[in-house]
Each structure stands twice: as structure tokens, then as C-alpha cells.
């Protein structure tokens, strides 16, 4: 597969391996420690249904090359949308200005490097599927949601897919290629009961093909989940405010880990000493029930990659082991500067962006507890099963995320739905209050987007049912 992508770029744009070596030499002509070239050719398709009609369909083609030069802690970067030797050479020359010393590194000859992983076993990528078939998925979801409850008044549903060819050439001799499929279905249902209007949102996908929507997540199942969320909200009451026990359901609530610990364990913040987790490796930052990993090697997952955007194979990095902080997620630059190994977490949104340490699929390993027992153990608290977005200030550790489907727990039973619950906490402290971890680890359905320094990337999260003995819940009912 690596060779497919390499061949794609070399033949389609008439480039030779010798020219790529020349470009790396141009990038390092004024000095520097390292240079790389990131070639990207990407096609995105989308089609969306709303008000029972297919309103719009779109297709975009993006292509370009980013050239990076690293000199110590400094990075020079330039890109071009034109994949042609002269244009890339110009970009390489622009990027090279960051290095003001001369001739410290000579690039070595590049060799095609085989992929370690083969994570996208896709029978029929959506990018090649007939538009008619995608429209059938949308129609099916629309019909199923409206059939679920007559109070579902509006349905918006869209299918988005991407096929991305990447080729990465590095001054330390690697030439890596990958062809990365990605697809998702996204859905919003609006329920209306006599003027009381509530929305439900959901979706799913991954680095998968059409078979995913025929098997793992059918439009019917998705529609019922999202419609139920909207209908449930109709009866929801305001969330009581205050500190209480919180039980998080399995799967998407793993966004807690992404916000509470994930961002704070990205190596750039830790190298610069601006993370609340800086210098705390080996310290207890969670209860001993918690083991948290970032794993980019799970087949077909949204956050998975055969190689990261610096050409490094992805891996499984243990972040927290039995409550003790073990490691950071790193890209090339920060690994070099920290004297650590790159963990395959160097990612970028596109050829226009400089790689940063980013998450892949971040989740907590399963524990021993029965999820039903966990709920039964709570006298008064909150059971949160679906979330909207979250955010963190990595320096003081404060994080917040908002529940889109949550219920009260009263005397060990899940009772009334509540709305408007925001959970907040502090990264290095929050997981210390985890007092039970379920045996029901689930990964999310595959819709997560993560933003950092203006770069958006697909990621995955996962969680077994967990109990947090105390957490601040923001709500309007005092």
C-alpha cells in the first residue's frame, strides 16, 4: 500500500526520487538539523439531506506540498498548492531561511520504507461508492427517525467521505506513503412537543468502507439513537448544580480523558513547561483503577493511522498506568528535543500545517466492575451517557465538557433525564476520584474532531463505565 501512494505521486506529478532528494537538499542548504516534505492529495465528498430532500452535494480536491526545516528549536515552514518541482523548490528555499548556519546536516538518500501497519481493510471505500447508494443511507435514516416518534419534526443527515494520499520524505532517509480513507455519517434530529423543542445529535464512521453502514452502524440504529436523545430531552428538567457523584457511560464519554489528561500529556506543552502535568512522570495523577492509553493502531478507527503525518508508524502509548503518569505523546521535534522516542503522534490538518503532537484514539482500559453495580452504588448523582464538546486549559488543568444526554441517579436507580449539564474539573485531580471502573470498555462510534492551534483532526475516544465520586456539575437548578 505504501508503494501505491508513492507511485501515485511520482507518476501523476512526474517527480523522481532524485528530485525529491534535491528538494530535501535545498531545504537544508542553509543549515538545519532535519527537513521533511509532506505531499498530500485529497478528495472530499459530501451529500446532505434535510426537510426530506437531498439539498446539496459537494466534491473538493485539495493538493499540495509542505516543506519543513528544523534547526534546534526553530521550525521554518512553507507550502505550495502546486505539486511540481519548481514550486516545491521555491517553498523549500523559503523554509530554509530559518536556519542561518551553513551545512550542518547532509540529507541521506531516501528509500521507500514499508508500512508497519495495515489498518484500513476497506472493501468498498465511500469515496468510490455511487452517490445513489449514499443517498439511500440518508433516506433510510430520515425515515427511521421520523418513524421512531411523531414528535421528531426535523432531520438533518449527511454522509462525508475522504480519501487522502500522503507521501512523506525525510532528510534521514525515509520515503513513506499511505492511502487513508475516512468516512462518517452525521445526524441531527429536532423534536417538537407543543413548542418545546430539543435537539439530538449523533453519528459514526471511521477509516471504513460502505460495509460499516450495513453492519456496524446501520442508518436505522443511528436514527433511533439520535431520535431517542431528542425525545428524552423533551422531558428533561434543569440539572441540579453542585458537587456530586458522576457515572459516565461507556464510549463517547471518554472525551473526559481527552480533555482532562490527553491534551496535558502532549509533549510540546511539557517540553515548554506550560502543562499542569509538566515534570510529573512517575507521580500519581489518577486512582489506581485507571490505565489510560493512546493507541493509533486500532483497525478502522477514526483516530488510527498506519503512519503519522511525519512518516512515523503509530503506536500504543501508555499515558497513565494504574494511576501513575507514565508518558507523553510526541512528535519528531519534541521527541528530539526531550531526548525521547517519537510515539507516532505527529499529526497535521493538511499540507498547509506544521505537525504537532496530537492524540489518536485515547481511552481507558476496562476494569472489573459490573456497570449495573456501579450505578446501584450511587445514592444521588448524575449518569451522563452522551456529550457535546469539551475544552481544557492545559496550564491550570481546568477542563469542562457538556452532556447532551444525562439522567439523575437516585437511590441507585437511573431516573429523570436532565438537560444543560456541564461537568468541570481539574486534569491532574479529577481522575483521582475514580472509584469504580466497569468491565464494558467501548470506543466511540467515530465522529470526534479535535482542535489545537487552529488545526482540526479526526480522533477517537473510549471509556468503560466509570464512577467519579465527586465532580462539579454546572446547572441552572441551584
Amino acid at each position, binding site marked *: 500500500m505504501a508503494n501505491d501512494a508513492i507511485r501515485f505521486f511520482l507518476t501523476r506529478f512526474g517527480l523522481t526520487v532524485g528530485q525529491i532528494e534535491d528538494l530535501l537538499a535545498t531545504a537544508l542548504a542553509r543549515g538545519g538539523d532535519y527537513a521533511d516534505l509532506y505531499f498530500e492529495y485529497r478528495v472530499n465528498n459530501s451529500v446532505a439531506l434535510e426537510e426530506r430532500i437531498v439539498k446539496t452535494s459537494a466534491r473538493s480536491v485539495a493538493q499540495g506540498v509542505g516543506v519543513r526545516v528544523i534547526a534546534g528549536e526553530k521550525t521554518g515552514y512553507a507550502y505550495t498548492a502546486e505539486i511540481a518541482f519548481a514550486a516545491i523548490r521555491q517553498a523549500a528555499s523559503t523554509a530554509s531561511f530559518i536556519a542561518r548556519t551553513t551545512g550542518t546536516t547532509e540529507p541521506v538518500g531516501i528509500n521507500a520504507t514499508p508500512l508497519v501497519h495495515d489498518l484500513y481493510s476497506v472493501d468498498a471505500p465511500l469515496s468510490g461508492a455511487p452517490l445513489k447508494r449514499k443517498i439511500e443511507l440518508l433516506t433510510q435514516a430520515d425515515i427511521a427517525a421520523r418513524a421512531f416518534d411523531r414528535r421528531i419534526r426535523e432531520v438533518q443527515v449527511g454522509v462525508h467521505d475522504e480519501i487522502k494520499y500522503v507521501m512523506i520524505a525525510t532528510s534521514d532517509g525515509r520515503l513513506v506513503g499511505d492511502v487513508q480513507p475516512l468516512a462518517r455519517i452525521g445526524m441531527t434530529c429536532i423534536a417538537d412537543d407543543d413548542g418545546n423543542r430539543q435537539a439530538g445529535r449523533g453519528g459514526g464512521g471511521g477509516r471504513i468502507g460502505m460495509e460499516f453502514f450495513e453492519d456496524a452502524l446501520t442508518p436505522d440504529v443511528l436514527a433511533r439513537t439520535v431520535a431517542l436523545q431528542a425525545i428524552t430531552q423533551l422531558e428533561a428538567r434543569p440539572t441540579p448544580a453542585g458537587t456530586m457523584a458522576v457515572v459516565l457511560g461507556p464510549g463517547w464519554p471518554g472525551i473526559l480523558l481527552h480533555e482532562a489528561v490527553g491534551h496535558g500529556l502532549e509533549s510540546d506543552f511539557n517540553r515548554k513547561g506550560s502543562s499542569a502535568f509538566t515534570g510529573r512522570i512517575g507521580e500519581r495523577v489518577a486512582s489506581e483503577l485507571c490505565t489510560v492509553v493512546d493507541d493509533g493502531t486500532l483497525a478502522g478507527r477514526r483516530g488510527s493511522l498506519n503512519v503519522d503525518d511525519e512518516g512515523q508508524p503509530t503506536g500504543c502509548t501508555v499515558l497513565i498506568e494504574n494511576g501513575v503518569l507514565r508518558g507523553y505523546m510526541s512528535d519528531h521535534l519534541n521527541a528530539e528535543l526531550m531526548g525521547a522516542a517519537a510515539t507516532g503522534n505527529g499529526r497535521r490538518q493538511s499540507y498547509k500545517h506544521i505537525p504537532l503532537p496530537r492524540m489518536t484514539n485515547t481511552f481507558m482500559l476496562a476494569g472489573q466492575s459490573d456497570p449495573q453495580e456501579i450505578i446501584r452504588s450511587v445514592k444521588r448523582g448524575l449518569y451522563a451517557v452522551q456529550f457535546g464538546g*469539551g475544552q481544557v486549559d492545559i496550564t491550570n488543568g481546568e477542563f469542562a465538557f457538556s452532556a447532551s444526554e444525562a439522567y439523575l441517579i437516585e437511590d441507585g436507580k437511573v431516573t429523570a433525564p436532565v438537560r444543560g449539564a456541564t461537568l468541570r474539573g481539574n486534569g491532574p485531580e479529577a481522575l483521582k476520584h475514580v472509584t469504580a471502573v466497569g468491565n464494558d470498555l467501548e470506543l466511540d462510534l467515530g465522529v470526534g474532531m479535535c482542535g489545537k492551534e487552529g488545526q482540526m483532526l479526526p480522533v477517537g475516544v473510549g471509556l468503560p463505565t466509570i464512577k467519579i465520586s465527586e465532580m462539579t456539575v454546572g446547572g441552572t437548578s441551584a
Partner: protein
Amino acid sequence: MRFELTKESAEQLAQEAVRRGASAAEVVMKRRQEFAVSVRLGEVEKIKESTDQGLGLRVLINGQQASVSCSDFSREAVLRLVDEAVELARATSIDESAGLPEASELAREIPALELYDEAVERLTTEEKIAMALRAERAAQSYSDRISNFDGGGLETASSTIVLANSLGFAGQYDGTMIGLATVPVAADDQGRMQRDYWYDTRRRLEDLTAPEAIGRIAAQRTLRKLNGRSVPTQTVPVVFDPSMSASLLGNLFEAASGEAIFRRASFLVGQLGEEVASRHLTVIDDGRLPGKLGSRPFDGEGLPTRRTVLIEQGRLESYLLNSYTARKLGLRSTGNAARALIGAPTVDAGNLYIAAGPHTPAEIIGSVGKGLYLTEMIGQGVNIVTGDYSRSAGGLWIENGELTFAVQGVTVAGNLKEMLRGIGMVGNDLDFRGSVAAPTLLIDRMTISA
């Protein structure tokens, strides 16, 4: 043969799409030259420099609609995409409301709005680095407690936008942007770190806040967060600082956007002409303020931009609309279409602001016996459909009209409907640092949870 980034070329392409089967077509072309430098602890960290361009085409076949985009301007690539667009459109449904604007509504003249500043383009790399370093140095020298930086730098961009459609509209404008920011980190006696930032973004170099002032404000904002603590759960008045007021205004924009209204997904549905806020609140969108970031001569569909009063002394006067949402609602477009390279036009504000009131920020804070001066919020806990509002918050505690200790680890909650009605005072400190601007606001009661 290539298409060029010109009005003539864009018009030709729109006509070519009609020849190839579209009943109407619209072409957008964008070129952007960007530069960004980030600095840290007196050194350059990253420099990024590039020129990028792209082309987008929207085709309609009597209510069927599709869009395509690419960065390759070669005739062959573009024409292949035109054919694909026509094919995609044929697979969609007929949407009676989809289409280009009425020809009579299109802009006839392109006013000069001072959107382009040659001085921004003339800045050398060394000058840009120096400005970024000056902001950082000003923050660092403000206090020994400023021990580190989490980022900061300067970016500039100059862009050209071309829009043409098959009704004969063709327009073009250039614009510049310059932004400067610094993000200091400070630690308290226990070693607990805080960071905050300050920035400015403008079209013209001469409008940009001095780097020293940006550094000083960033330092002050960071230092005042030190030694933060929680407060008990209670319902109190909350004073929104201008950046938090701007965030609230962002929520109000979402709720007043035609896209939320026609979907009936906003708490402002059916409220035109009604009192939706206290009489102290007036909200205006103006796409024609000279030299402002949100200004542009025509919108994403070629309509003239304009001044629209959304809320006049508490009364909802208008939504913000593009042609599509206007047709859905039986109203007229307010010239607020936004056009990305790909997709149907969406709705965006020009320069959206809350009209300044009579009070100084000190008077507003001074009027509060016990409450929160809100300077920071994180999380996305705002529900535009219901107005439910619940976000993690930080700021300073107000006691007897005075700012006291830093507050961290709380949430603020309310409902936008009640919050708007509860605006008791509006500050006189309106300052456009971007395209959404608002003064200090007092909201009479919100729930704070700890």
C-alpha cells in the same frame, strides 16, 4: 490554458458551467498570502510563509444544487470539475428556495472600504519578528512572576477575493490582516501555573495596538488569575468583561442567523418585533465600517453589504439572512451570505457589535455588592435551541463593588433568554479588536456552582 484569478476568468467559468448544463452558476476564487511567526522566550520558534489559492463553483439546475472546489487552475482540471458538479447536482432533489439572488439585488458598485493596507504588506520579516518579541518582552518585564510563555507571535495575511455569477455579477476586493498575540504563563507561591493571553487583530497596521500594550495587558490578565479559588454555589449578578460579552454576542449571532431560524432551532424563532432583551441592549451588524475586519463590499452571493439593526433597545428587529434563508422565511436577504470555496452559502455577520452604553466598567463593577467579574469561560455548554447556558468559568470575585480574589473551578449557568432580559448595565468600553465586539455587561443573576 489556465483559469486566472480575475473577474473576467471567473465570469467565463460561470458561463462555461451554464454551457455545460447548469441553469445558473457562481464562481468564487480566493488567493491568500500568509506569514506567521511564533516566538518564545526571546527566540523565534516557527516561521511559516506561503501563498495559496483555490477556486469554488456552485451550480444549479432549476433548484438542484451542487458545489465543487479545487486548487488546480488548469483548464483541464477545472472543466472536469465543472462536469462533475453538473452530474452531482442532477443527483440532488429540487429545492425551490435554492438559487442565485435576484439580479436586481446584486451589488452595482464596489465601495472602497479601506480593507487593504500596503503597510502590512511592506513589513519585513525582521520587523514582524521584532514586534512579536516586543510584546513578549513587555509581558516578561511586567513581573518576575511571568516565568514562561505558551505561545505568541505575529501573523499577517493579504487576500484577494473574486466572485462572479451567471447573472452577470463580477466583483473583486483585496484585504489585509495583521494579528499580534502573546500568552504568558505565571506561577503562584505553590507553583500552580496560570496562563492567559492578549491579542489584537486589525486590517491596518496603524490600528494595531502597540506590542508593549498587548504584552502588558496579557501579563495583567495572567497575574490576576493567580491563587484562584472556588466560591460556594449561589445565584449572583455577573459582570461580563468585553471578551466574555463578545462570546455572548457570538451565541446571539448563532440564534439570530437565518440558518437556525428556518430550522426552528433557535430560541429566537417567532420573536421578530418582540422584546427579547432588556432595553439597554442594542445589537448592530455593519458590513461597511471602513477599515474593520468584518467589512467587505459585497457578500458571498454578490449582494451589497449593509448595516442591520438586530436588536433595538431590547426589541428583535431583524435576523441575519442570505438569499436561501430569506426565501425559506419569506423575508429579504440582509446581505449576510458567507461563501467558502466549497458548499452552499452560509450566513455570517459583518462587524457585529453591541452598542456602547453610558457606564464605565468601574461603575458597573461598583454597582455589584457580591458577584462574579467573568473573564474566562471554557466548554461548549450553550444550547441555541433552548437557550440553556452552562459553562466552566473563571474571573474575579466582586465584594462591595471591588474586585477581590481570583475565582477558578466554578461554572456559570443560566438561560440566554433570561440573561438577555437581565442585562442591567452596558459599558462604554466598546473596542473592535476583531469583527465581533462588545462592551462590559452586567447580567443581574446567574447560578454559580462549585
